[in-house]
């Protein structure tokens, strides 16, 4: 039997990751990926946490893209060789949390990249959270399943049920047998994003303003967005989504 010659010098083991990359699973367009990514960014800001932001949505030229809301977001062309290494460059420069908004149809390139960097990144203590947006549209569920089949248990999963109508039915996500299998295998955490009035959301997107900006009455030049009704609604949206994000912060922080 060996004799202990030294007290712990290497690993008083800390299982928490050294950095976390949070990315929206690309796929179906218009399911609210960028809207959620901007809400999530606002949540981090409200917590006083500095994050790295990557906008991978090549198709979103201006309105609605993450860079449109946040100037500091780095636009990444995933088709460029090393384009996706921006994630790791940001971590190298000291970001502990990186949020990336993937565009629809980016699956093939991102999956190739993920395959190549996952092992060393995992060894270096970088954790990944994949965010899947589901709506009443069954295609969004299929998209999450396709990503799950590729990512397997290499990431933590957060599913956001985005109510795009006032009485949204998530039956395709909640009752489909393959989706049930997904939940049993990957145990994702789920949150809800409540229905938002499209007039307010579209107007804010057009003006490059987040819900936070509307809630804080920063849309002074815009009659619709500066109205008390819009401000109150934006405050309610923000309060509710922040409450949901607080519930799953284990997947969003280190």
């Amino acid at each position, binding site marked *: 039997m060996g004799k202990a010659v030294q007290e712990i010098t290497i*690993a008083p083991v800390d299982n928490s990751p050294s950095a976390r990359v949070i990315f929206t699973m690309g796929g179906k367009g218009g399911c609210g990926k960028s809207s959620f990514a901007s809400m999530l960014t606002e949540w981090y800001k409200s917590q006083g946490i500095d994050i790295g932001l990557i906008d991978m949505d090549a198709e979103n030229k201006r309105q609605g893209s993450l860079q449109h809301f946040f100037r500091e977001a780095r636009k990444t062309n995933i088709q460029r060789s090393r384009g996706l290494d921006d994630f790791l460059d940001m971590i190298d420069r000291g970001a502990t949390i990186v949020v990336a908004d993937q565009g629809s149809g980016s699956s093939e390139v991102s999956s190739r990249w993920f395959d190549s960097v996952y092992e060393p990144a995992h060894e270096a203590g970088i954790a990944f959270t994949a965010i899947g947006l589901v709506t009443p549209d069954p295609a969004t569920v299929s998209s999450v399943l396709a990503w799950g089949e590729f990512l397997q248990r290499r990431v933590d999963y957060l599913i956001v049920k985005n109510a795009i109508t006032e009485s949204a039915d998530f*039956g395709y996500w*909640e009752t489909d047998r*393959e989706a049930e299998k997904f939940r049993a*295998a990957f145990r994702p955490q789920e949150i809800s994003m409540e229905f938002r009035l499209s007039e307010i959301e579209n107007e804010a997107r057009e003006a490059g303003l987040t819900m936070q900006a509307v809630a804080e009455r920063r849309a002074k030049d815009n009659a619709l967005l500066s109205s008390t009704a819009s401000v109150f609604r934006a405050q309610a949206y923000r309060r509710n989504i922040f409450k949901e994000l607080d519930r799953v912060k284990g997947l969003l922080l280190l």
Partner: protein
Amino acid sequence: MTDSLSPELQALLDKFPNAAKRGGTSKLEKYWPLIKAWRKRGKTYLEMRNHLIEAGIFETLSTATLYNFLKRRSRPRKEESEPVTESDSSSPDHQQSLNLRRLKLSEEELRARREKARASNHKPIFEKPAVAEDERVTFDIGKPRENRNLQPPTIKKRT
């Protein structure tokens, strides 16, 4: 059946009620989270042993020690051991079970008892997990998604 203790013996029993816990803590105990994390990442016992020696934590360490520690430590731990109940042979239950052994049962009673025993043998003890942890999960993505919340639309009859 318990014999009653004299006051002197009772006093001694009160003074030293429980046996000292046997078996010390393993020297690997404080490295358990590290060893567990390594195993999850697929490290072999030999690799873990070499890492621990290279890091200067142990001079020597056998893979068997690591293996035995992991095997023992991975078992679910009980918070407290169940209190041992002493069987009381004078209890009516015990007497009844003894009588039953001597009892001659009819064919039907015997059959019923056998059926009952078989049925209890075939009860699943553990629920099988839906998907094993190390299994690759695949989905039938091409299949149309189903929504069991949807009800067929009802047509209102005009009156």
